[in-house]
């Protein structure tokens, strides 16, 4: 039982890294990035390509994934997202078009990775060898500790940055009203680029962790990951870091319990059944932030 709890906290840390970025992009910029799962997978793939040619250490591979994710996400912002945002005023139209564009990007990334990997799974080889320690009845590896520390640490740092720093406050101003924020001298372009870079970088980091932790991944995994992140966001509320942490813990615990108590064939349905139930009961998420008002009529 304690072991399952530990495993689910590790899984939750990866979910946190992955879903915070998606949640922030949606909350702050109104972009639901359906390519987020593909970015995670593709960053891991880039890290794999890079690690395959050199014998890289763990930090180097993590940085490679982080940069790849950040750059990919930034390119999406500088390309389609910005063009769409500057051509439509209507919030719903904007949402719809960015979602469609991001689905296109996702298709490209998955297809490119599938083409070069032959649609099979790949690993990220590093010089790092995890060592496991036995503490009582629980086995814990140093990799698990690193994942937990990075996952929870980065989310804490990001939350502090958003609430305390000058730029963080500017980002939150952007979240509530772009035009007024611009009148106060806040550069929407710079901050939205930064937000998207951070969002993608976190996904890239999560990707490398996930592949090293699980051993391998394949291009098609992007879709099911995306649904997990969406479940986390729905539970936690859009744009809320604390909510995402809670959501990730809940989802990871549920998944771990179901996988270890049943044959595992139903596990892909968990995240989604959960989303559906939550949305039916509370359409704005369990821990809603004030920003996204779901009920309009």
């Amino acid at each position, binding site marked *: 039982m304690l072991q399952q709890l530990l495993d689910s906290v590790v899984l939750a840390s990866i979910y946190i890294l992955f879903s915070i970025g998606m949640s922030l992009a949606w909350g702050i910029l109104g972009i639901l990035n359906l390519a987020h799962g593909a970015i995670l997978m593709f960053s891991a793939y880039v890290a794999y390509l890079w690690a395959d040619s050199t014998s890289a250490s763990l930090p180097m591979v993590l940085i490679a994934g982080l940069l790849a994710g950040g750059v990919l996400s930034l390119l999406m912002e500088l390309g*389609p997202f910005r*063009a769409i945002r500057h051509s439509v005023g209507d919030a*719903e139209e904007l949402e719809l*078009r960015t*979602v469609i564009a991001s689905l*296109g990007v996702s*298709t490209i990334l998955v297809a490119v990775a599938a083409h070069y990997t032959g649609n099979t799974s790949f690993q990220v080889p590093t010089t790092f060898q995890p060592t496991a320690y036995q503490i009582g009845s629980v086995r814990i590896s140093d990799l698990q500790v690193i994942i937990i520390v990075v996952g929870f640490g980065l989310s804490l740092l990001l939350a502090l940055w958003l609430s305390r720093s000058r730029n963080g406050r500017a980002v939150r101003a952007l979240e509530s009203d772009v035009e007024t924020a611009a009148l106060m001298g806040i550069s929407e372009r710079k901050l939205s680029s930064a937000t998207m870079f951070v969002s993608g970088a976190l996904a890239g980091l999560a990707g490398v962790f996930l592949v090293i932790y699980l051993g391998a991944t394949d291009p098609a995994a992007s879709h099911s990951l995306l649904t997990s992140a*969406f479940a986390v966001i729905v539970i936690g509320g859009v744009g809320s870091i604390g909510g995402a942490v809670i959501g990730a813990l809940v989802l990871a615990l549920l998944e771990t319990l179901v996988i270890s108590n049943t044959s595992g064939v139903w596990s892909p349905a968990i*995240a989604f059944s959960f989303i559906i139930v939550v949305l039916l009961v509370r359409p704005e998420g369990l821990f809603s932030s004030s920003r996204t008002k779901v009920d309009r009529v």
Partner: protein
Amino acid sequence: MNDWYLSNVTIIQSCLIAAMLAMSMQVTMRVGVLSVAGIGFYGLGQYSTALLVLHGILPWGLAIAVTALACGVLAYALARVLSRVRGLYLTMVTLGLVLVLTVVASNGGEFTGGATGLYGIPVTVATWHMLVVIAVGIVICAVTERGFVGRASEALRSDEMLAASVGIEARTVRRANFGLSGMLGAVAGGLNVLTFGTVNPFDAGFPLMVTILTAVIVGGQRTWLGAVIGAFLITSLPTLLSSFSGDTREMAFGALVVVLATYAPDGLLGFASAALRRLRSSLRPPPTMAEPERRRELADV
């Protein structure tokens, strides 16, 4: 002509089925909802028709009709249950439902044939059957695109609150569109099963959603005609250009979707009609005072 038809019959049939599916997605888009529930009903329609025919419960024509009606009612009920869920949340919920259905179908044991699905379903549908069914579908879509229902949907698409304030029954229109979408999806599924003789739980999955959405975006999301044109292009092009297959096809479609969503959200049809409008107005004598106003209004529609 006949030789050409015989060697391309599979593509033609696939195009027609894709066109039905694209219409099913377009029908919800015209009330401003990006829903992939139509794909889920496509899967349901496949299984329901296959099971009804395989177990000899109904002849194939009735099997499709019953399936279509049941799925239409189910889709209407679904829209009722989901009436509190909006916008992108609704998109993700429908996405979730489709993926859950896939899991259910692949774990359904002997009844659904598990992960391998069902096969050996008698192939009874000919191309002319499909043409008749799709013609009926087109008539329904075209009729509901005009007149009061069309205007109500259009109003709902641009502003739900405003539409409700001028007396449009927002919920009823939305639910009716969902019902129609489910029906079209189910019929497409039924036709597909009775044309190709097999069902697989992963038929109605993520790749199909992306393909059909691509079709609607490429053709034009505003009208049924755009959806149909898009479906024909997306389905036939990869087969006609043989080098253009598998992953290359996916990459090209992805790129096409990004470019169109960014620069031409109304697709090829929107692009063509804008060009036509520009051509017409350049041929006409210089506008009077009221003309620019009117033209702006038309452009908004």
